[in-house]
């Protein structure tokens, strides 16, 4: 092995363990309260996970959380950006979730028609 090969191997391997290193550009938080699950949050999440993998996005982590207080618009997903900006998407399904991945997570364009509110970066 030479230095170049080691570097390549390191880059490949880092992808596998990146999850443990913290700070990603996007953090997707799926609401998994009882109402969320009932409304199909798991399907939404699975579809997002598949899509992220398919598109090979690396700077994204997906977390789950309990109720976020938006029961009537579930399934709800919040996309948190490293800068602090947060976007909440509601009334999702598998297809809409793919769209979020394709547009917001890959291209950085918010899917305005799915977003329910925008939290500004705290000053």
């Amino acid at each position, binding site marked *: *092995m*030479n*230095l170049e090969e*080691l570097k390549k*191997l*390191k880059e*490949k*391997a*880092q992808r*596998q*363990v990146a*999850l*443990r290193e*913290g700070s*990603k550009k996007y*953090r997707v938080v*799926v*609401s*998994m*309260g*009882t109402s969320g*699950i009932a409304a199909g949050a*798991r399907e939404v*999440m*699975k579809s997002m*996970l*598949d899509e*992220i*993998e398919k598109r090979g996005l690396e700077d994204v*982590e*997906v*977390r*789950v*959380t*309990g109720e976020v207080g938006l029961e009537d618009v579930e399934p709800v997903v919040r996309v948190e950006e490293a800068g602090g900006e947060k976007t909440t998407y509601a009334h999702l399904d598998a297809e809409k979730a793919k769209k979020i991945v394709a547009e917001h997570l890959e291209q950085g364009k918010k899917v305005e028609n799915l977003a329910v509110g925008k939290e500004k970066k705290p000053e």
Partner: protein
Amino acid sequence: MIRAHILVCAGAGCISCGGHALKDVLATELKKRGLDEEIKIVETGCMGPCDLGPVMLVHPEGTFYQRVTALEVPRLVEEHFIKGRLYTKLLPKDDVTANVVTTQRDFSFFAKQEKIVLENCGLIDSENIEEYIARDGYAALGKVLTSMKPEQVIAEIKASGLRGRGGAGFPTGVKWELMAKAPVTPKYVICNADEGDPGAFMNRAVLEGDPHRVLEGMAIGAYAMGANRGFIYIRAEYPLAIKRLNIAIAQAYKHGLLGKNLFDTGYDFDIEIRIGAGAFVCGEETALMRSIEGRRGQPMPRPPFPAQRGLWGKPTNINNVETWATIKPIILKGAKWYASFGTEKSKGTKVFALAGKIRNTGLAEVPYGTTLREIIFGIGGGIPKDKKFKAVQTGGPSGGVIPAQHLDERVDYESLQKLGSIMGSGGMVVMDEDSCMVDVARFFMDFCCDESCGKCPPCRVGTRQMLNLLDRICTGEAELADIEKLESLATVVRDASLCGLGQTAPNPVLTTLRYFRDEYLAHVVEKRCPARVCRELLEFRINEETCVGCSLCARACPVHTIFKRDGQKKYYIVEDACIQCGACFDACRFDSVLKTSDGMNARSVAPAALETSSTRATKPVMEK
């Protein structure tokens, strides 16, 4: 996509309390719930807090769960991974801040540590070289081979102030330089992984949790010193470490990181594992080399030093696992960075193994200069059951005992030596008020006596004679002159013995005599054991006020000497027949069995009689 990693601790501590089973149960549960494609389970090396095991860490959140038994797994998975809530039941409580800890970073045990040697332990899969490479693995070796001259490597190590972590604390860079200058070839490097101190397991943790770091350190050192062959001498009692080392070596060869022509520089380096057969003395470098040569593991006088005449008469460098494991970060981050940790003479960090009467048993890596109090109370969480701290024994069986008044001493090589102890491999055995210091000294002397190789008479016979004297003190048969005899023997063994084992074996005796002489006198003069440990000096009575007559004590008594009072629901012990085994004391659920050691006072003997040799006659002779 994988959205979460569960890092399950697969250090020996967690495995022995169910870590492997936990992994299997977790895997089954995740599969059952259809989560197996989104969540990955990784077995890592030791995370540190061994008494909380089995432990696991969930990323990306960094949630740390303790005592995760198989039964708890379904609830845990349901709560954490499906519903996205913390499973609070298994979250550890911080002994220092008394808060429930939600992430690893908030836990004082981790927060107060400075992990350099253990940076990967508990974070990567030790059986997967790629995870090590992801954390800059072998980058230091690559850097050294492609851009540094051997002298530069040695200069860097010298500048870092790194001192050997095996115990003696000899400057590593100087040792390397001596070896590099030796004109004879071939040369060898050896990793000393014969960690034999009872209560020390930092080397095991590194080998189990991050074996590649040791291989990389050895390769760097070998390059700097001009060696092409290395040996890892590891004790047979570490099967898991051996297994993981073997896997690591095989993977390193497969990736071309060991063997011929490393990094296309034409430099060759091979590593072999040699398994020790369980002799403590084989951790001594000359004995270790003889053992590798296939001979009886007995130390040889130095000089000549291994750097002059070592393995098969060739120049040889031996460093401890922890020393080798420190090389990689020094090379990558620089000597200056490393030297910024620690004290003036002791640079960097040291892994301590906390054991004994302490809340958080396990491994803690801190910079030199951290106080004993910070290590024992800040990280270790103090003494369980709110008992009083009495002493800490540092440096393994041949280290010394340090009492409470020196708790604020900053730990480094010199300060410990000043207190009569040694750094040793970094073991810390904490003792509380229930520990008898004479018994402690006897325990360690028993160990050293048993492990003495027998080559030199001071150690072979001296430790045996000292043990006999300590036995006499513990059983109340000793006279005042025996303490003097013990002290003078201790100095002979210390000064005349051939190797470190004998030279340091009297340390527990000498330090307990120095700091706890009153306890010795209590045993010898008053025939009592203040900590109520030495069996022959105990008396057992039943407090008939509180005795409920349950008969547990009578049934536990192996010599049937506990009887029921006629017509009462009370029991009593016939003291003459009692063998002081303590079975009744352990059996009683109402604290009605009293364990006392009042010795001569209880028998109201005139103090004048204490100093005479007739002391022994006043005490009933106890059968051993």
